[in-house]
Structure formats: structure tokens, C-alpha cells
């Protein structure tokens, strides 16, 4: 069978930098779903945009050919290529919020696709078909959707509108570029269902760009693995995942516990073998009782945190899992005294946090430090590591200059960075190294509690494992207590003792990590696990 799309030796570069794609060749079989997977920077989005010739302005195709149904698309001028878009190739963009024009109704934007494709259908027939298509992707009331402006729809609804748009001209090929990465897991599943329904109904070939291996495994027939702009492996998905030949594919699979379900079990095993932490040694480090926090005006308040009760014993790791908007970050801010609760008690390290004033909060912050998500933004780019790591010591006027220098050197040792790095600036470090610096800074005051706010989610899977390993070792060496905030159950399985799953401000379930991961009691947790 001839493939619908054949890409041969495609090389793309931005400006004068090293190619984002180098000599990529792959086939997309007709009528199937082909997943293109890889980490950020692997070139998978560049590939998607190159096929529809919508590369960002600096992007240039340097070599290679792209064929659609046997035709070399390089032979088409811009105008002739435009005739392909919409009619023969549909595209579902990544970010549903920015991808619709905010000042036009959804209906107008959908109808526009028909006008641009020169559809012979009358206005009434166009609307009839749109209503049917919208019902297919799960809208019960298509007329309201057609009359709505994008801001009146949720992210998931907007993405389903964009799916409808991509399929509206019945193209042979639809390319979906990370269609769910900006969405809540459950909502993302609805969007994928929408793509599947449309695809099955119109017998469309789909290229699914994703970094999510579980999503690829559940949704694709074929897989192409990209690493740093090169295809390292491709084939039927079951074969590739069962017997990964390339080291990169293996490391990708290994770092995703959602894929290696067996590995979650082995992690749970190690917990059982690990001596049970000194859980009941005195007062818990963190104790929240019936805590609520609302934001906004009296009339339009949102309950960010709704009656949350939890407790974290000394020397253990408590993971708060949820997606953006679930209230997990607000909870961590309550713990650090950065927000005051509307109701309920917050006790941290024996201090009654809501009643603390400036001096009390200063004392709390000496013992409770935070590591932020983005190692790129949380470090002052103008300071050397000496300044960054030593800053808390200066702020608390600890030691002489020489003592502080010695302490900074010790801290670099502690996070496994060479002492010679002390004069480097953040720009000279990799993402993983920067996060080690952030950890060293957090440890400078010898705190008892670390709040880890998505500590590895900005890092690639292979580097994540190293940083998490460091955190586990540090906990053992220093007897630290961790309060971990994350959306990623892979991270939880790696390091946590107890886990609480949070959604819309409420804790859905909590318990020992092996119990929650192996026997999730909630649909939502199962969706997060997706095993």
C-alpha cells in the first residue's frame, strides 16, 4: 500500500542555528493514526508545521521532499499550496485558547472554512453539516455553540471546535499538534474521542504529535520517535513499545511509569521494603485542618481551596497531585504563609501560620523553603552561583564572608555540582544543573521543610530522573520533609510516601502512594494514571 504522506530527507533550520530536523524520512500509511513522539526540542512540532508549510518566519526547509498521495508538494507555489490547506490537509493547533479569533463567533469561524475552500454548499446546508459535525464531537446543543464567542467556551470545547474545523472539509490528512497538552486530562480524553469519532466517520489519516507516550499508545497505530531532529525509531506501535531498539526510546519508556505499569508496582515494592519512616515521631511538620480559601469578589468568588485536611509526618514526602487550577499551588502558598486561609487551621513546624506577623514569618521561612518549577526564571541571570546560593545566608546575616563561601562550596557538593561552578552564571548551566542550584539555595539555611512546586516538570524525562534521585538522597541524608506539588504521577511514584489527589479545590482521595496508584478509588485518579 502506498503511504498517504511520504517524507524523505527533510531538513529544517531556524535562522543560522543547527537544523531542528535533519534528514527526516518517514511514511504515514493511509487510514491510520501515526504518532510522532519526542521530548521538547526533538523537532516534532517543526515537522508538523513543515508539512502544512506554516513554519514560523525564521524556519527554512533546507532539503528533502514531502509527498502527499504521490505528489511532490515542493512543486507547488504558495498559492497552489494554499489550495491544499483545509481541503486536503486539516490542522489542529496546540493551544485552543489562542487559536480562535476572540472577536468572531464560533459559527463565523467554522463557516469561513467552507467559504475559503470554495464549498458549493448553500448557507443552510453548511449550517446543517456543522450542526451534525458538532454533535459528533460531543456538543449536545450545536446552535448555542455556533452563536457563541470563543471566550464563552471552555478550553476543551474550543479544542473540539478546532477539531470540527480541521475535519470540516473532509481532508485526507489531519495533523494534530499536541492537541491535548494544554488541557485537563479528562478534557483531553474528550478531545481525543472527538478526533477518533471524526476520523472513523470520514476515514481520515491522522498524524498525532505528542510528548505523551501513554496517549500515543492508546491512540495510534504507528509511531515515529524523534530525538534531537532525527528519527531514531519507527514502526507499528505495539512492536516499538514492546521491543524498543533504540536507547532513547528505551529511556523514554523507562521514565514513564504510566507506560511501564509493572514498574509502578516495583516502585511500590521498594516502598514496602524501605524501613517505614519515623512517621509518628512527635507533631506532624504540616497540619492543615478544614482549610478553605476563596479568591475574587464577594459576588464572583471561586473556591480555590475547599475544606482541605491533611497532615505530613516528619521526614516523609507528601505529594499533592492535581492539574492547573486544582488549587494545589494555593495550598502550598497557604503552607508557606504566603496566603491566609479564610477558614481552617494551618500549623507548620509547630507554628500557627495564619497568626504569624513579619518576624514570625521570617522565622518560618528560615525553616521552610521552596523550590520553584522553572529553573530558568527562578534564578537571577546576573548573579553567579556564589551570589545565588549565598543570598539566603546574607539575607539572614549568617556567618562571615569566609564562612559563607565555605557553606556555598559545601552546598554545591551536596547537590553534586563541581565547586568550580561557583563563578558561573545561570545561562552557562543546563536546565537540570540550574534546578540543582535552586535546590542548593533552598538548602542554604538548613531548613526542615522543602516545598517542591513542580520541581522537575520543566525538565526532560531523562534529566527528571536524576534530579528526583538527588532529592531522595538529600532527604535521607538531611532528614528533610518534602511537600511536593505536581501534576505528574510519574514523579509521585518516584519519590512520595503519601499522596493526595486534588481537583477543583477539593481532595478527592489520599493515602499511601502504593495504595492510591495501584488501587485508585476515583475515576479522576484513574484518568491521571491512564494505565
Amino acid at each position, binding site marked *: 500500500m502506498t503511504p498517504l504522506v511520504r517524507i524523505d530527507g527533510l531538513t529544517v533550520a531556524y535562522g543560522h542555528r543547527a537544523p531542528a530536523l535533519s534528514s527526516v524520512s518517514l511514511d504515514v500509511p493511509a487510514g491510520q493514526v501515526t504518532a510522532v513522539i519526542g521530548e521538547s526540542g526533538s523537532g516534532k512540532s517543526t515537522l508538523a508545521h513543515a508539512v502544512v508549510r506554516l513554519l514560523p518566519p525564521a524556519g527554512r526547509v533546507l532539503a528533502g521532499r514531502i509527498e502527499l498521495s504521490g505528489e511532490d508538494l515542493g512543486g507547488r507555489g504558495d498559492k497552489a499550496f494554499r489550495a491544499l490547506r483545509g481541503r486536503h490537509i486539516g490542522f489542529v493547533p496546540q493551544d485552543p485558547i489562542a487559536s480562535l*479569533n476572540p472577536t468572531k463567533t464560533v459559527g463565523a469561524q467554522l463557516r469561513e472554512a467552507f467559504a475559503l475552500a470554495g464549498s458549493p454548499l448553500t448557507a443552510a446546508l453548511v449550517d446543517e453539516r456543522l450542526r451534525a459535525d458538532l454533535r459528533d464531537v460531543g456538543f449536545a446543543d450545536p446552535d448555542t455553540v455556533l452563536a457563541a464567542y470563543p471566550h464563552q467556551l471552555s478550553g476543551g470545547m474550543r479544542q473540539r471546535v478546532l477539531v470540527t474545523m480541521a475535519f470540516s472539509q473532509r481532508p485526507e490528512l489531519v495533523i494534530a499538534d499536541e492537541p491535548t497538552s494544554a488541557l485537563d486530562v479528562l478534557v483531553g480524553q*474528550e478531545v481525543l474521542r472527538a478526533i477518533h469519532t471524526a476520523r472513523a466517520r470520514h476515514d481520515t489519516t491522522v498524524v498525532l504529535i505528542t510528548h505523551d507516550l501513554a496517549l500515543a499508545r492508546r491512540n495510534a497505530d504507528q509511531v515515529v520517535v524523534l530525538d534531537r531532529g532525527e528519527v531514531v525509531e519507527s514502526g507499528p506501535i505495539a512492536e516499538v513499545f514492546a521491543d524498543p531498539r533504540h536507547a532513547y526510546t528505551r529511556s523514554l519508556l523507562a521514565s514513564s511509569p504510566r507506560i511501564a505499569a509493572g514498574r509502578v508496582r516495583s516502585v511500590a515494592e521498594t516502598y514496602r521494603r524501605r524501613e517505614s519512616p519515623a512517621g509518628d515521631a512527635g507533631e506532624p511538620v504540616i497540619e492543615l485542618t478544614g482549610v478553605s480559601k476563596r479568591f475574587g469578589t464577594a459576588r464572583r468568588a471561586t473556591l480555590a481551596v475547599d475544606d482541605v485536611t491533611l497532615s505530613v509526618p516528619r521526614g516523609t514526602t507528601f505529594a499533592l497531585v492535581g492539574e492547573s487550577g486544582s488549587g494545589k499551588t494555593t495550598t502550598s502558598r497557604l503552607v508557606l504563609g504566603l496566603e491566609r486561609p479564610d477558614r481552617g487551621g494551618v500549623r507548620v513546624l509547630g507554628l500557627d501560620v495564619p497568626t504569624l506577623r513579619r518576624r514570625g514569618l521570617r522565622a518560618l521561612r528560615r525553616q521552610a523553603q521552596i523550590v520553584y518549577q522553572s529553573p530558568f526564571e527562578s534564578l537571577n541571570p546576573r548573579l553567579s552561583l556564589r551570589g545565588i546560593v549565598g543570598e539566603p545566608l546574607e539575607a539572614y546575616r549568617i556567618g562571615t564572608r569566609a564562612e559563607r563561601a565555605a557553606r556555598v562550596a559545601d552546598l554545591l557538593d551536596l547537590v553534586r555540582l563541581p565547586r568550580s561552578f561557583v563563578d558561573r552564571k545561570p545561562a552557562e548551566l543546563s536546565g537540570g544543573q540550574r534546578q540543582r542550584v535552586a535546590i542548593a539555595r533552598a538548602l542554604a539555611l538548613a531548613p526542615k521543610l522543602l516545598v517542591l512546586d513542580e520541581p522537575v516538570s520543566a525538565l526532560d524525562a531523562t534529566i527528571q530522573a536524576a534530579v528526583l534521585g538527588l532529592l531522595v538522597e538529600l532527604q535521607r541524608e538531611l532528614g528533610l520533609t518534602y511537600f511536593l506539588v505536581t501534576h505528574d504521577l510519574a514523579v509521585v511514584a518516584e519519590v512520595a510516601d503519601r499522596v493526595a489527589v486534588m481537583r477543583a479545590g477539593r481532595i478527592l482521595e489520599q493515602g499511601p502512594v502504593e495504595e492510591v496508584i495501584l488501587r485508585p478509588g476515583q475515576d479522576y485518579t484513574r484518568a491521571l494514571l491512564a494505565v
Partner: protein
Amino acid sequence: MTEVVRTVAAKLARAVVVILAAYSASFFLLFVLPGDAVLARIGTTDTIGSADVADLDLELLRAEVGLSDDLWTQYTNGITGLLRGDLGHSLITEQPVTELLGEVLPNTITLTALSLVVSVPLGFALAVLAVNPRSRALRSFASLLPSAYVSLPVFWVGILFVYLFSITLGWFPSNGSQGVASLVLPTAVLSLLGAAQFAQVLISGLRTELGSTYAAVTAPAKGAGRFHTLYRHCLRNASFPFLAVFGLRIGQLLGGAVVVEMVFSRTGLGRLMVDSVKAVDLTVVLGLVVVLAGVYVVVNALVDVGYLLLDPRLRRRNVEVGHD
């Protein structure tokens, strides 16, 4: 309905406050200026000719026009007059201020309105020219023009136009307020200024919109060409920042109108303003301030309405479309 009443009431209240504040600020600022209308009327506003006025009873003359009252009485008299719609009489010509304004306003309004009518479409055209063409050189040139033009002094451009089109080519009269022909050159100078200012804002707005995903990916993915995307999707969204500065730019346009009126010797607000400030004609200047503050208030109210018309996100009726 009550919502509308409340909004309108709030807007009116704010308008009154703005006008009163402008009036008060100008009143006290003018008071600290050296010289007064009595001196000006005699023919001097400084001390050079003070010997000649020595034998005149200045105090008597000042009392006649109410300048010898204390500051507070003058101020309250002015405010109460303003609230009754009476702007007083010119200290120089003794004509009612409203009458003076009535004589010059139509001229200035015609000039400014005409310039607006020309400059808004011209500004849009220039902005489109600066982002749409395939040729990079043409785009850079078109985006350079507005900045170049706004950096030229208005009076200089005015004189240049007079020299070129009246003196050398003899196409249009160089001065006067009579007839349509006399309007051409002032309108040209002023609308080019407006167009350049509007184009500056629009160009940056269009660049932002063209770079956003709905214009850079979604629309072309449907098969839309560059001009279609620009015209059907971006133009409206790019005009929000344009609207925001429109209210402010109106002030600059009026300032330009003042200069243009002087250069082309037209009767109008500009002349009246320059003459009465020179003469320290307190009542006339304050009358002008009230008119200008009123223009600002009206224009900004229109801008608010424009926002409501253009941006669906600001409209109240927020139908919640189900929930996931």
C-alpha cells in the same frame, strides 16, 4: 435597564468632575501668570511701558471687570457662572465668551472633523501597507513613514505646503477661512499628522495580531491567504489599542489644529486661544478650556462605546454555554 441608567449617570458625573477640575486648574494657573487683562488692554503686558500707564487708574479699570475681587470670590463667581452655562464676557472686547466661541468653533470643528475623516482610513491604509506586502523593503519603508512624519514640526510642514502648493504651483490659497479651497491645505497637513499617529499604533497592533496563533496558524490552515487573514481577522482586533489611544490623540490633533490655523491665518479656536492667552483674557481662556475638556469627555465616551461595539468579550450578556 437600571444598569444602563447607572452607567450613564456615572459617566455624566465623571464628565462634570473632569470639566470642573480642568476649569479650576486653569483658573489658578492663569492667576500666577504675570500681567493681567487690564494691562494687556492698554497695550502692554510687561513692565516696559509702565511709565505710560502711570497716570491711569488701573485699580478702577480692574474693578470694572471684576479683577480686584479677591481670588476666592473670582473663582466662585466663575464656577457658578459655569454651572449656569454663562461663561462671562471677554475682558478685552467685552463680547460674551459664548458668542466668541460660537464664531470660531464651526471653523475648527470643520477642519478637525474633515481631517479625522481623511486620516482614519489613510492611517489604516498605511498600516496595512506596512505589514501586508511580500516585499520586505516596501514594508520597512511604509512602517518608517509615520514615524518620520510625526517627527516633523507641524508649522514647518504647513509652511512647506504653502510654499509648494500656493506660492510655487498656485493650486490653493495659502490663507483665509473662506470657501472650500481654503480648507484643502490645512486639512492635508492635519490629516497627514493624524494618519501618521494612527498608523504607528495600528502597525504595532497588527504585528501582534498577525503573530498570534489564530492568525498565524488557524486561519492559514483553513486555506486563508495573507490578505484575507489580515483583513477579516486581524484588523478589528488590532484596532483595540488604536481605540485606546484615539481619545488621547484627539488632543494632539486639536493642538495640531491650533498650529495649522495660525500658519494658514484661519479664524478658529487656535487663533482665539493664542490671542486670548497673550492678552491674559482670563474668561475667554477659561471658556476655551471648558470647551476642550468637553471635547475630551465626549470623545472618550465615544471610545468606550466603540469598545463595546467591537469587542464581544466586554458585552454584558454572557451566555454560559454548558460546561464540560
